[in-house]
């Protein structure tokens, strides 16, 4: 079982490297360097202006250091087929999970140490935590992560399951307490860890909950793939469709003037999280950067870029149904799908423009330039619809 775990970890590592290489391409790294530089500059400037020893600084340190505890769930790499083929291996799952446990610590530990480093000037200068105390505090956080993963591992067996959300709330309280009474938090962390390690010895006598383990791992992988899919295509990602009845008002009331392609695209755009989340995420992003730059020229340029990127990333919707056998069997004109997609995206883009413009009125100084920017953004969106999209659609039909 140990070998199987190592083999799977190796495959998982290769897959992660493949996607990380795609995500962290040259442009993205460059953007990250700028973003990180800007953030650090803002941090350094804020540190100068901030008064020292305000009452909420220590809880703030506790809260920020609690955030990385939310990342990095227990990686088990258990597959659906294991329910069938490893069904008799309950006794050996403990052995299988050991390398998985160690692997699961890597990412959260990197994040905790990185964040602890960034937060150190604030914690020591502004919050008044001594460096030695801060070291113990960070050590406690690292032990908390072990405890959290041990609880997740325990939950894989049939026994009283501990809700991880509850564990996270307790950890939040403990990290905030730890920012004041670091020794107390350390003692609690050590006692919990010893208890959980002792409890782990009983695993061999317990029944492994295969169904729960499979579902948990599937959910974990889905989260990881969702992050990767924000930047690149992820073949393995399984989409879970949401009904979202509250958005039905955006669909035509009658099907009389509808056609099959438009009918499918509209519903996919509203119910497939890949597309709707993208649209929402990009719109929020445009509003957020507009608010940050506080200048109509920058807001216009960056929002136009976001609108373009939205359209670009929504293009795969055109071929979304090509692999569905019923789509190919039904008498649906596939050659018209590009034109139908444009009609659906028209509405999506206009809604995006409307939201961005409305938010500009709230977050940017209102003057004549702002209204001009709104008009220019609208013209840009219309140009995308009548010039860019038909050209892209032609390419799609050629690929067919």
């Amino acid at each position, binding site marked *: 079982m140990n070998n199987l775990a190592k083999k799977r970890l190796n495959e998982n590592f290769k897959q992660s490297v493949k996607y990380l290489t795609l995500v962290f391409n040259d442009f993205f790294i460059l953007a990250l360097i700028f973003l990180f530089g800007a953030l650090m500059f803002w941090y350094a400037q804020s540190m100068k202006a901030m008064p020292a020893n305000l009452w909420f600084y220590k809880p703030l340190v506790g809260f920020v250091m609690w955030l990385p505890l939310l990342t990095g769930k227990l990686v088990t790499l258990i597959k659906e087929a294991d329910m069938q083929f490893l069904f008799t291996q309950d006794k050996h799952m403990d052995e299988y999970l050991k390398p998985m446990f160690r692997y699961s610590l890597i990412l959260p530990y990197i994040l905790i140490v990185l964040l602890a480093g960034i937060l150190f000037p604030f914690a020591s200068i502004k919050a008044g935590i001594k460096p030695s105390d801060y070291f113990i505090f960070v050590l406690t956080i690292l032990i908390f992560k072990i405890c959290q993963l041990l609880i997740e591992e325990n939950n894989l067996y049939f026994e009283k399951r501990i809700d991880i959300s509850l564990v996270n709330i307790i950890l939040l309280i403990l990290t905030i307490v730890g920012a004041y009474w670091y020794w107390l938090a350390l003692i609690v962390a050590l006692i919990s860890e010893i208890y959980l390690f002792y409890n782990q010895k009983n695993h061999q006598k317990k029944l492994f909950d295969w169904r729960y383990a499979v579902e948990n791992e599937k959910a974990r992988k889905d989260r990881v793939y969702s992050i990767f899919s924000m930047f690149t295509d992820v073949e393995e990602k399984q989409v879970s469709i949401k009904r979202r*009845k509250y958005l039905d008002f955006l669909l035509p009331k009658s099907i009389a003037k509808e056609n099959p392609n438009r009918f499918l695209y509209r519903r996919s755009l509203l119910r497939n999280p890949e597309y709707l989340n993208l649209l929402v995420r990009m719109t929020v992003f445009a509003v957020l950067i507009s608010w940050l730059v506080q200048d109509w020229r920058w807001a216009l340029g960056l929002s136009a870029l976001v609108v373009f990127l939205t359209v670009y990333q929504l293009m795969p919707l055109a071929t979304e149904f090509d692999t569905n056998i019923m789509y190919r069997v039904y008498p649906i004109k596939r050659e018209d799908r590009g034109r139908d997609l444009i009609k659906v995206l028209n509405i999506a883009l206009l809604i995006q423009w409307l939201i961005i413009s409305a938010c500009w009125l709230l977050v940017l100084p209102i003057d004549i330039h702002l209204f001009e920017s709104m008009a220019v953004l609208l013209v840009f969106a219309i140009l995308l619809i009548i010039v860019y999209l038909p050209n892209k659609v032609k390419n799609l039909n050629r690929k067919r």
Partner: protein
Amino acid sequence: MSLKIEHLTGGYTGVPVIKDINLEIKPGEALGLIGLNGAGKSTTIKHILGLLRPQKGSITLNDINLMQQPTKFKREVAYIPETPVLYPELTLKEHLELTMLSYNLDEKKAWDRAHELLKMFRLDDKLDWLPIHFSKGMRQKVMIVSAFLADTSLLVIDEPFTGLDPLAVANLIDLIRKAIADGKMVLMTTHVLADAQQAISNYAVLNNGTIEIVGSLKEIREHYGLKPDDPFDKLYLTLNKVDHHE
């Protein structure tokens, strides 16, 4: 007016899976396609549905050639696959609406028919459900309802009884019988001959990519030297021997 498959040779790659298939189904006729796994039943169906390009031969339905007028041809064909394929984004109601849109059905008449079918398969209270909430049998029922709603002249049914409860099997057989009586053409593949022969009397035996015989079950028994009271499983044993011999 008929489905004509003439000298059809084809498959997935350059190597043909089916060779020189000739079949004809006239209005009001049904044909069962039987054979062992890998005999070429699904490949034949995929060619009729336009999912594979024939290497040789032609497929015409009511004088419409599949390769020349694919959309017009497809408008005359409804299909029930062995494994139900639904759109995860669409509710049951929307699957029916999509069928109405694709086949250009009159909405009012189609809904009257849909309600009948939904009631028959006990789906009438699940119109707002997404496929994720359906069991395998229920998904298959959605495929059946959609296919019979399309009201086409040819019904292509691939292994329809898998995963259905006995009540649904009986209802499906009833629907197939009515369709035949109404002058529709039915092509069905199945291994469950006990159920199939309640609706279909004519069969084509497909073996190793070629049609060995077309006829009634009695004629098929005689062709393979089976006694009248021999269980039909024996046909498959005989086919297996023929297959191995080749």
